[in-house]
């Protein structure tokens, strides 16, 4: 019997399997950030040990940083101390840190791929659930807690049980105006926010193969929102072309060696999955969420489910959710007013996302009663956007281009959405209070968010697709 992509990588990284228990899994790359690492460093320091393989650890500051005036000291004391602790810990343990002001600083899941650190066939972890993003390169990449961060720092290994395996195929061709964020929100709306819990998910099918690397990252990024342990896509020519020539990509003979390995990374035709789902690309329309978990999504031409469309045992949580959102059961979503637009986060803050937004808004003005924040995923993305003149497009449209960081995705740093306000967001979570206490989030693609920025309302980008928009 053949092997799946997941099994091929997993088996190569098992140091030892305990009888009736988990495996000791070797980790190739470990990303760390300021929020989930300090307690792990404290643990090492208490034991009097150093980081085992500091050259396999990369650090950045992203979650708890301001996205304006990054050249100034961080004003909020606790945040400043947390970022200072990261500097001190990295210096003491010999870890490369791309801190505020560094030309490589940015959201951890944006910088790993863009610097060529993320490569096929690796095992990658980070104390952040969206580590699944890196699976887009055909790696096993997953989020861990701080105790596990400490384990990887101490031994470059983790205790892990083999998950079940699922394949989700998207077959066909996407319609104009439909992008990768819509694919993943569509999958979520079909299988729910717990539909892949306990599984490693491989995304496959002709529609996935057609996607760029950045678009693939958006899908793997949100595999955690289905509960998946990780999400992955087999590497192909798109993957290899993306990595080649990047700062930390293999070079020369090493490149040729790695390429041989990467080319072996695919699921054999006779491999077996515990579960397999196939969806049709043509069925997908621009998506938006109406509720308080990412599985509560609908097409923009649809309506919030009516009470009689909701399963009996889900009525209580459904009602709680739409009450929080201030929406009516059965109401259309199109035309819903928004107050804020947030374009950013590890889901959609890469250069292609910014280009997509810019090509839509060029020459237009934002609605007067909407505040629009664009937060590039990294210093590199910010630089590229400026080189391409995208910053001027945003400025002329009345958008505020901020500096790199997680920003309004998680209501931790200064960037929060005020209570009761509606934000259409390209991020990954619409949980209660996620973007700030009592803030209300609609998750959508960068295109759908761009349209809302111009009109002040939820709309259907397909009505505009004849315009010269890069999709």
């Amino acid at each position, binding site marked *: 019997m053949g092997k799946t992509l997941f099994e091929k990588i997993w088996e190569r990284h098992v140091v030892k399997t305990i009888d009736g228990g988990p495996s000791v899994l070797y980790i190739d790359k470990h990303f760390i950030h300021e929020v989930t690492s300090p307690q792990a460093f404290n643990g090492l320091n208490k034991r009097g040990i150093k980081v085992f393989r500091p050259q396999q650890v990369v650090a950045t500051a992203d979650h708890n940083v301001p996205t304006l005036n990054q050249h100034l000291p961080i004003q909020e004391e606790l945040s400043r101390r947390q970022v200072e602790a990261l500097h001190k810990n990295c210096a003491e343990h010999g870890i490369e840190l791309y801190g505020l002001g560094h030309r490589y600083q940015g959201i951890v899941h944006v910088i790993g791929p863009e610097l060529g650190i993320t490569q096929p066939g690796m095992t990658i972890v980070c104390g952040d659930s969206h580590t699944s993003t890196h699976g887009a390169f055909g790696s096993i990449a997953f989020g861990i807690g701080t105790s596990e961060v400490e384990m990887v720092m101490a031994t470059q*290994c983790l205790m892990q049980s083999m998950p079940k395996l699922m394949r989700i195929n998207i077959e066909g061709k996407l319609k104009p105006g439909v992008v990768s964020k819509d694919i993943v929100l569509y999958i979520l709306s079909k299988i729910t926010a717990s539909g892949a819990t306990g599984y490693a998910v491989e995304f496959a099918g002709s529609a996935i193969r057609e996607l760029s690397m950045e678009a693939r990252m958006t899908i793997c990024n949100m595999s955690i929102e289905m509960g998946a342990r990780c999400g992955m896509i087999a590497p192909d020519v798109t993957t290899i072309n993306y990595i080649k020539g990047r700062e930390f990509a293999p070079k020369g003979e090493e490149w040729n060696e790695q390429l041989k390995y990467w080319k072996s990374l695919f699921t054999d035709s006779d491999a077996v999955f515990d579960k397999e789902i196939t969806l049709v690309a043509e069925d997908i329309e621009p998506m938006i969420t109406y509720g308080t978990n990412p599985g509560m999504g609908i097409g923009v031409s649809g309506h919030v489910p009516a009470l009689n469309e909701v399963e009996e045992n889900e009525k209580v949580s459904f009602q709680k959710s739409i009450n929080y959102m201030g929406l009516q059961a059965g109401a259309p979503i199109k035309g819903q007013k928004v107050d804020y637009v947030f374009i950013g986060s590890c889901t959609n803050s890469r250069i292609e996302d910014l280009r997509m937004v810019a090509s839509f808004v060029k020459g237009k003005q934002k609605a007067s009663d909407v505040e629009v924040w664009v937060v590039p995923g990294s210093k590199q993305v910010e630089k590229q956007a400026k080189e391409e003149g995208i910053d001027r497009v945003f400025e002329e449209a009345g958008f505020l281009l901020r500096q790199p960081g997680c920003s309004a995705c998680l209501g931790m740093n200064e960037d929060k959405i005020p209570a009761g306000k509606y934000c259409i967001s390209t991020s990954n979570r619409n949980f209660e209070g996620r973007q700030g206490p009592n803030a209300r989030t609609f998750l959508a693609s960068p295109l759908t968010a761009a349209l809302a920025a111009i009109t002040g309302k939820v709309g259907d980008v397909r009505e505009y697709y004849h315009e010269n928009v890069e999709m």
Partner: protein
Amino acid sequence: MGKEINIIHSTAVPLNIENVDTDQIIPARFLKATSREGFGKNLFRDWRFANDDENQPKSDFVLNNPTYSGKILIAAKNFGCGSSREHAAWAIKDAGFDVVVSSFFADIFKNNALNNFLLPVTVSDDFLQKLFAAAEKDPSVVIEVNLQEQSISIAGTSDRENFDINSYKKTCLLNGYDDIDYLISMREEIEAFEKQNVPA
């Protein structure tokens, strides 16, 4: 004091809400600390207090209901989804809970709980409904969790169910062992592995 756990005999707090994500358990704005202690006071912060104000407790939230207390939290399915923040497990433990019972846990939360000697007990949907019904009817009802026997029962009734737990993890919890101690003891084997398998 040992961290080990085996038999927990306690009243329970029923939190009958599905898909409780870790942003609800501990909102991100409380993750700025650099130590593991003190997160319990902000457990379910925005469900406990209106307008982010400790002087405005929400009386309809179960953790504000003085008739409920205990070391066992009963939660509805898909508990702990979302962010990987271990602060969620720290906050629950810090607030005095030793066990969380649900019909379904999110993966990362489950690992985090186990690493903090907070026992996640997975029961059937039917048994979970029995637990909710028993605790909601009588807040003084006692639940007994026995890790050695892998069983959970409602005192004074014949309602009892067995639960699964990985045998390695069970040994760790019963004896107070941490994964990290085991991994550090393996460093030589890990070095040998590295020599044979040049890291990618």
